[in-house]
């Protein structure tokens, strides 16, 4: 475990979390949420939690993002905040 690497990912995590909550376009928010999940997955793989990382890659970055996009396309794409 290299702590510099870890720290960089953690900082990016905070940034992506903030971006995905602040963009007004919900489709982008869903995509950036996928990026957030993928970074999280990298972080966990670094922490020797391979099973958790695998699951997060499949679920967080894959399926959750698809569910979000499906809902965004079925409702409204714009958000007021």
């Amino acid at each position, binding site marked *: *475990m290299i702590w510099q690497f870890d720290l960089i990912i953690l900082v990016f995590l905070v940034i992506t979390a903030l971006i995905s909550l602040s963009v007004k376009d919900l489709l982008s928010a869903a995509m950036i949420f996928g990026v957030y999940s993928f970074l999280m997955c990298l972080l966990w793989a670094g922490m020797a939690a*391979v*099973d958790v990382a695998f699951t997060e890659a*499949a679920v967080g970055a894959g*399926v959750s993002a*698809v*569910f979000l996009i*499906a809902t965004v*396309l*079925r409702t409204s794409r714009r958000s007021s905040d």
Partner: protein
Amino acid sequence: MSAVSDFPDWGDPNSPANSYRLSQHYVTETIHETSVPNMVTAVLADYRGYDTMFETVVIFTAGIAIIGILRRFGNDDKDAAKPTLYTKKPDLIIDTTCRLMIPIIQLFALYVIAHGHHSPGGGFQGGVIFGASFILLAVSRDLQAAQKWVPEKRILNLAGIGVLIYAGFGLGSLLLGQNFLDYAILHKIMPATPIEARSHSMLGVEIGVAFTVTAIMFSIYSNLASNGSMKEGL
């Protein structure tokens, strides 16, 4: 927040959580007691198998709940929300790529399910990947094409059967006179020693989980993507 300073240092092997006999036992004894090298799978499916059974139930519940909330039977499309971005007819490149990809994805999913004892993976991850392959099919063509492969009724039966497989292993050990989910007793009906019976039962349980997860992931997607009408997806 002040509690953080009270936490053990990050990565400390001697922190209470890591040094207590619980974690040590899982690390050192798993191979002897269950003959499974992947400790996560062993703890997941055996030591804490009851949790995992309800984890499967959570997925199953979510699937049924979404059908309960969103599904519209019959033809009342009058208040259906139209997708805001409408997709055109299938594109040649996407179609061909997906046609190539989907079998490979499914093969990989099967590998992940079956090889969960020895490498990262297991029923849940494999199930999600398998479900994702159907989702990819539905995205690349449309929902109708995917529905032809896996109609809604069959999906639900598959999900229910998955949970039943898991619970059936538990029930089997209960009927053979041991506590619920005590797989070791299943060696009476399996060609294996009690310890290997645990390993084999774990495989069976993982397959059950994979069934449910595959089915429910696709079911959730198709309900969300079609706003409950199951007619046209994205």
